[in-house]
């Protein structure tokens, strides 16, 4: 087996040093009833690299990749061009096969890029401080609610009807099993929701999304003020981080915690994961933050260096009193994010955002011109909602039959709600071309 260096001679010699006649002796603490007589039954034996690669090509051949079809799907995961440098860098073995930087003297590479990542996230969100990443945006949003509950010592979260339904579902699941309350607002396809009247003295936090799940761009400054008066925190979720190149950042609207899905920068679609959660807040709340943090310090020679810090919040020190049970984060995806963001820089990131907005504007106008289709958004970034003259799910299936990946029917994420049955979410990024938009518009005209 190509991955196993020990030879039969090595094994015999090593057993001699250990003083065991066979490897079975080393497993003698396993109860006899649980010792398998041989290998696990009913499973195939090892394969060469060629056979493994073929097997995966077979899986791949049964899928329709967006690289081969007109593609306009978003809803929390976005297809962008990732520069070649990014994927090369994250495959360097020194990054790929290192672990959490527990020994800072020999992991300054990881620690420095995480420090740079934390700085980039702070700047993008307009917040004071950010951590070294979360699993993804969706789990990060749930951790943000727990953090707000700790800070306010309250137990009622108010969830916007414009929040991604998966995110809402995770918060509700956590609320149920961890014993707090999550009150969800009515589903808000029109982007007209006003939560201010519902914020009261029991509210720990309000969770909103910008742009909303349905694509609307909202100003939360008044809501932030209402939260401040009531002693609640405002959590702003951003599922399309590229929008921060063009839209006023949550920090400037008065957010207390900002959670972003960072997938769009540096990380491919990957059928849903792994992604990278960005998590930022105000300095005064840093000790209630979940996740790893990297800080600057100096070594014995006075040279600048970086270490994991404030770990007294964390499970390996605080055990049952920890701020979160999180241990691993999304290190390599954070590296992909930070390399891509460094390539973009100020000018590139802003231009990328403008291109996305321009492509989506074009798509919105063309889709809205299809007979029977109504655009619900006055405002959007690179994604919007349209009402079709019939249920959206079969329309999307009919488009798929034509090898067009034409958006997400809202009913897939909000099932059993007749009011959203006809709604379709469409996204366009800088990757959209006429070669894709043309067939989509033609396909819609045929199918509707």
């Amino acid at each position: 087996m190509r991955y196993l260096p020990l030879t039969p001679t090595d094994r015999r010699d090593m057993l001699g040093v250990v003083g065991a006649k066979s490897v079975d002796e080393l497993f003698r603490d396993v109860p006899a009833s649980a010792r398998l007589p041989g290998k696990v039954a009913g499973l195939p034996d090892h394969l060469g690299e060629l056979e493994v690669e073929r097997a995966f090509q077979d899986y791949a051949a049964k899928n329709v990749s967006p690289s081969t079809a007109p593609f306009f799907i978003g809803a929390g995961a976005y297809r962008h061009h990732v520069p070649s440098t990014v994927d090369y860098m994250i495959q360097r073995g020194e990054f790929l096969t290192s672990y959490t930087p527990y020994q800072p003297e020999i992991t300054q590479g990881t620690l420095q890029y995480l420090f740079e990542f934390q700085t980039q996230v702070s700047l993008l969100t307009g917040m004071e401080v950010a951590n070294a990443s979360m699993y993804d945006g969706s789990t990060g949003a749930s951790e943000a609610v727990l953090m707000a509950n700790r800070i306010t010592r309250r137990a009622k979260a108010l969830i916007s009807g414009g929040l991604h339904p998966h995110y809402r579902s995770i918060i509700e699941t956590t609320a149920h099993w961890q014993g707090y309350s999550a009150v969800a607002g009515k589903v808000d396809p029109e982007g007209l929701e006003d939560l201010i009247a519902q914020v009261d003295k029991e509210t720990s936090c309000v969770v909103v999304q910008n742009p909303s799940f349905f694509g609307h761009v909202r100003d939360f400054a008044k809501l932030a003020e209402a939260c401040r008066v009531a002693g609640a925190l405002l959590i702003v979720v951003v599922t399309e981080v590229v929008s921060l190149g063009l839209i006023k950042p949550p920090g400037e609207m008065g957010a207390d915690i900002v959670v972003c899905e960072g997938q769009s920068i540096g990380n491919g679609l990957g059928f849903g994961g792994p992604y990278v959660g960005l998590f930022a807040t105000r300095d005064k709340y840093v000790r209630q933050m979940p996740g790893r943090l990297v800080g600057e310090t100096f070594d014995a020679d006075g040279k600048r260096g970086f270490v994991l810090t404030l770990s007294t919040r964390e499970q390996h020190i605080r055990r049952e009193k920890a701020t979160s049970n999180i241990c691993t984060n999304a290190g390599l995806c954070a590296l992909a994010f930070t390399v891509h963001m460094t390539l973009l820089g100020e000018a590139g990131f802003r231009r990328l955002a403008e291109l996305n907005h321009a492509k989506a504007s074009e798509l919105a106008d063309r889709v809205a011109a299809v007979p029977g289709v109504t655009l619900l958004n006055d405002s959007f970034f690179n994604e919007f909602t349209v009402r079709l003259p019939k249920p959206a799910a079969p329309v999307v299936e009919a488009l798929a039959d034509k090898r067009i990946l034409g958006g997400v029917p809202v009913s897939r994420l909000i099932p059993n709600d007749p009011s959203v049955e006809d709604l379709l979410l469409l996204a366009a990024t800088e990757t959209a071309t006429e070669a894709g938009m043309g067939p989509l518009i033609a396909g819609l005209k045929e199918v509707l």
Partner: protein
Amino acid sequence: MVQSLDRSQGRAGGLAADASAAPATFTGNRALQIEEPLIFEMGQPGRCGVDLPEPPKVKDRLNGLKRAGEIGLPGLSEPQVVQHYTRLSQKNYAIDMGVYPLGSCTMKHNPRINEKVARLPGIGDLHPLQPVSTVQGALELIDRLAHWLKALTGMPAVAMSPAAGAHGEMCGMMAIAAALEARGERVRRKVVLAPESAHGTNPATAAALGFTVKPIPANERGRVDLAALKAALGPDVAAIMLTNPNTCGLFESEIVEISKAVHDAGAFFYCDGANFNAIVGRVRPGDLGVDCMHINLHKTFSTPHGGGGPGAGPVVLSAALAPYAPYPWIVKDGDKWRVAEDGAAVDGKPLGRLKAFHGQMGMFTRALSYIMSHGADGLKQVAEDAVLSANYVMASLQDVMTPAFEGPCMHEALFDDSFLKDTGVSTLDFAKAMIDEGYHPMTMYFPLVVHGAMLIEPTESQAKEDLDLFIAALRSLAERAKSGTAEEEFKAAPRFAPRRRLDETLAARKPVLRWRPSNNPPEGDPMKQAAE
């Protein structure tokens, strides 16, 4: 703020002599070790590492919320970016460089075929919400990995969506809470038992779900004290959380009695699967009476650790817990795969949703590739070689270091610090001296139940001659420490790493968690000093 030649960034300045006694260099560099500024100290307006077309002029539809002012991101060209991250990479130790014996973390070889197949466009470039008719191969792939995980653990069901081991723990303990709720016992059963040697995530998870954590002591053999466990079991106990093999690197030899006692008391057995590498392909946790166990795909199944993630933590479930698995579920109807994405769409009582979309697909792909490469025969050999290698390390060092417990051990060898008694050298000093010898240190000071713990996990990936050199290096260090003349040398270690010991107290007392223009006044600039 732009200091393209300031590679020192130190308070002491670029020409300060350091304690390794070699002469200082002008740049602060040491041949292949290049001092590297932050990107924020390198950027120039007007530079950019991408070429994007000019956007067409359109009226913006942003509800009047266009971003005003600079974000503050630096501008770098592509070659600068490549050099920056390459130089940073050279300050890291990694599995690709040698023995990485970090106990409890299973730092084994990461095959590159796994990276290649994860990047096939038909796998890596798929949207999770594409129509299911266009992702049949992806769903089949997930189900195939699920099949292997169930077969290898002897368990009937698996929840695939948890994002990491700790997330899997949360999933498993929620499933237990759900089963208790269904029995009407959730209010009554508020206690979770966990050995004192448990990973910190175990008590953190249980406490988050409102359970009270009661520690169970270990016996003198490093195992759960069965009598103490039985005494603690009562009608108020919800579950035990137990790692097996345990964090001392030992198999819980009374595991069958433990699971029977736990079940007799009406409680559940959560197994922390962090150490599955010791038994994979050789022992099935299902045969030990486990109700649920998370599997760290980045440990046992070699998905890259990536500097701290991403991981993946599927949870295998017994028949009693299977109905509570969180959605999504991958279901086969006839010859078609579908994803059941909400509670109404599954035949069970799912506990809810834990993650957006369908789980860590990229990790699933790599893990399945690793599993298929090994097969049932190779995985059994993995466990055997991992256990043999750990025992070899322990046996080879037992005369100069002090094993914490009598062997045989499983896949990791645990030493305490009694061999360092009266030498003035601590476990930390010993670990830092290993860095100068070219090794990543072992896990230190964990488990907490052993004084000055050193937990060495060689894994199955090291050749015997590399293990022999590693053993000889540790032997030399132990002898030097015990000679009584090397205390200063150990305290000064590491001397040859990119950085010497870092002031962690300063970092925590005055946290500097991001770059700001005023963080680091430009001092110690070699060009400036040369001019003076």
